[in-house]
């Protein structure tokens, strides 16, 4: 097992820069999600790490060893494909045995290792089946067993759960996480599903247009996004735009918004503030004001009731803000009602204009 270092990797297809100077350090034994919209370069990055494709420039190391010119079959990686890519001409057991058998392992060794891998993914009894006789979830498990049976240094997964329906996907997320912990393998997981990235990974890297936007533990990216894109792509956020003051921004109408975290900006520079919908308190009147809370007046334009919570859309000064309120049994607000929004500076992140 080993960590992976990607340093200053760029890759272009014609005039299109699919990866633009990307550097990420994947820690040994960690579960890492690469998150980004479609076309942001996630697959391209994974393929450079796997060795299906070589970078134009930059360095890739697995376990400290430079591999950027090593072909995939020599990199000792395990890969799980979105469409499973099981060999249709082989049984489940032969699929799993493939990697060991091309390596020339003894038959007896192969048989025990294959059985152990199939047991790990809870398919111990299905070794004799053909791939087409399995359900989508089972195929995915076989693909996983096949990828880990060779004891690779890194496990790479490209949207492995994308083809499964919601309920099965959640099952597989838990299952995948369990297996990853059990064997402790460095795992790089590509997804465009932010919830999947948040719930499964130790660290997340957000990609956009071939560049790494932000990288860190899920909590850190969620609580302290460094760009509007990171703030809105990972979770929901209300974005205010204005001019930087000492400790926040001033909106066009003169309202000041204080931010508890973010970079230090020159006063007057263009900047934004982001605040999560669940951090805002909504009330019919100003009530008791504690001095430094951010406060805005607005009008409820829409309410969506979702059982355990309600989402309010509040209009103010040409902007629609989103507020999520837990269902505590308190009175619900009606559409058209004038309200006051309040949230603390600690819940507000200052973002430099990009």
């Amino acid at each position: 097992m080993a960590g992976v270092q990607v340093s200053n990797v760029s890759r272009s297809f014609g005039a299109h820069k699919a990866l633009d100077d990307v550097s990420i350090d994947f820690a040994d034994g960690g579960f890492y999600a690469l998150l980004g919209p479609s076309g942001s370069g996630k697959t391209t990055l994974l393929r450079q790490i796997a060795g299906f494709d070589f970078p134009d420039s930059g360095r890739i190391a697995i376990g400290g060893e430079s591999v950027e010119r090593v072909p995939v079959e020599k990199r000792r990686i395990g890969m799980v494909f979105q469409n499973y890519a099981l060999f249709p001409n082989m049984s489940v057991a032969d699929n799993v045995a493939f990697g060991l058998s091309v390596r020339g392992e003894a038959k007896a060794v192969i048989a025990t290792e294959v059985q152990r891998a199939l047991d790990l993914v809870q398919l111990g009894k299905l070794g004799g089946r053909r791939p087409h006789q399995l359900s989508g979830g089972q195929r995915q498990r076989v693909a996983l067993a096949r990828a880990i049976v060779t004891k690779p240094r890194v496990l790479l997964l490209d949207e492995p759960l994308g083809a499964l329906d919601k309920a099965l996907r959640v099952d597989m997320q838990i299952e995948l996480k369990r297996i990853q912990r059990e064997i402790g393998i460095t795992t790089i997981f590509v997804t465009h599903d932010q919830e999947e990235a948040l719930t499964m990974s130790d660290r997340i890297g957000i990609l956009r247009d071939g560049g790494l936007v932000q990288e860190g533990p899920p909590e850190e990216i969620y609580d302290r996004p460094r760009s509007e894109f990171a703030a809105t792509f990972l979770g929901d956020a209300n974005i205010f735009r204005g001019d930087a003051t000492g400790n926040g921004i001033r909106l066009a109408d003169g309202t000041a918004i204080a931010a508890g975290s973010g970079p230090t900006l020159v006063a007057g520079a263009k900047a934004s503030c982001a605040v999560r919908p669940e951090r805002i308190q909504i009330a019919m009147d100003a009530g008791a004001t504690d001095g430094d809370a951010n406060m805005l007046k607005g009008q409820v334009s829409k309410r969506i009731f979702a059982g355990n919570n309600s989402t309010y859309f509040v209009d103010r000064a040409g902007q629609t803000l989103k507020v999520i309120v837990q269902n505590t049994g308190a009175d619900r607000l009606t559409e058209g009602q004038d309200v006051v929004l309040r949230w603390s500076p600690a819940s507000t992140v200052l973002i430099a204009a990009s």
Partner: protein
Amino acid sequence: MAAQGAVAARSGLRSALPLLAPAYLWLTVAIFLPLSAMVFFSFMTDLPLTGKPWAFTLGNYAAFFSQSLYLTLLLASLRLGLEVTLWCIVIGYPAAYVLAKVLKGRSREAIFLLVILPFWSNGLVRIFSWAMVLREGGILDTALNAVLPFKINIDLMYSYPAVIIGLVHSYVPYMVLTCYLTLQAIDDSLIEAGRSLGASRLQVLKRVIIPLSLPGLVAGAALIFVPVVGSFMEPRILGGRTGTFYGTVIEDQFVAVFNWPLGAALSFILLAVVLVILAVASPVLRRAA
């Protein structure tokens, strides 16, 4: 449920009948009638068309067994079919692989066109072009002597290799097309999955690609082997005196000797032998695939 399915199938068949009828009618007229006429001829002493008296006989079939020449020629033709098929695999499969898995877009279209061009050219023109290339003082001879520092004599004309070259050229597009179709249907991610598991390109080819494209190889082989065993044009024109095969003997009966009954009988013996070979080979191949 099952009954419903049966009803649906039956009504489906009934509505399909008007669509199927022309094809079956055509097959009946175009294949069944002439073929049964030939079966009829093969049991006659002489052609009724010539006005001479005739009778039924088994003699035409007996002739095959009484003269060892026919069996010798049949074996030579089967060997020819085998060799041409093998060469078509050796040349056609890699070409199909490159077309399906390596080339993309424009260049694929261009190469594809080159491969199927022989299909569209007249068979005789094709064969006589080879004659110009292969004979002494022909294109190949002249070209090689122009390049090589020493003098060599290339005269492949009227030889067994010339027959093979001509036949392979005529039939290799079948192999390329059938293999291309099965190779193209193989998902590229299977190849990548194999390599990610540590298999070299050669191992992936052997364990994944060839097994998955076997149906195309078999179809191509059948499409080539059967007509090559009965071929006469290439052997006659490119083989000259060495080009006497089972197919040329059959042709002789029809166009030179006018012994249609014998020609027909020899054809049906060939048909029977080929069918037996295919019947024996198919379960073996199915198990392999």
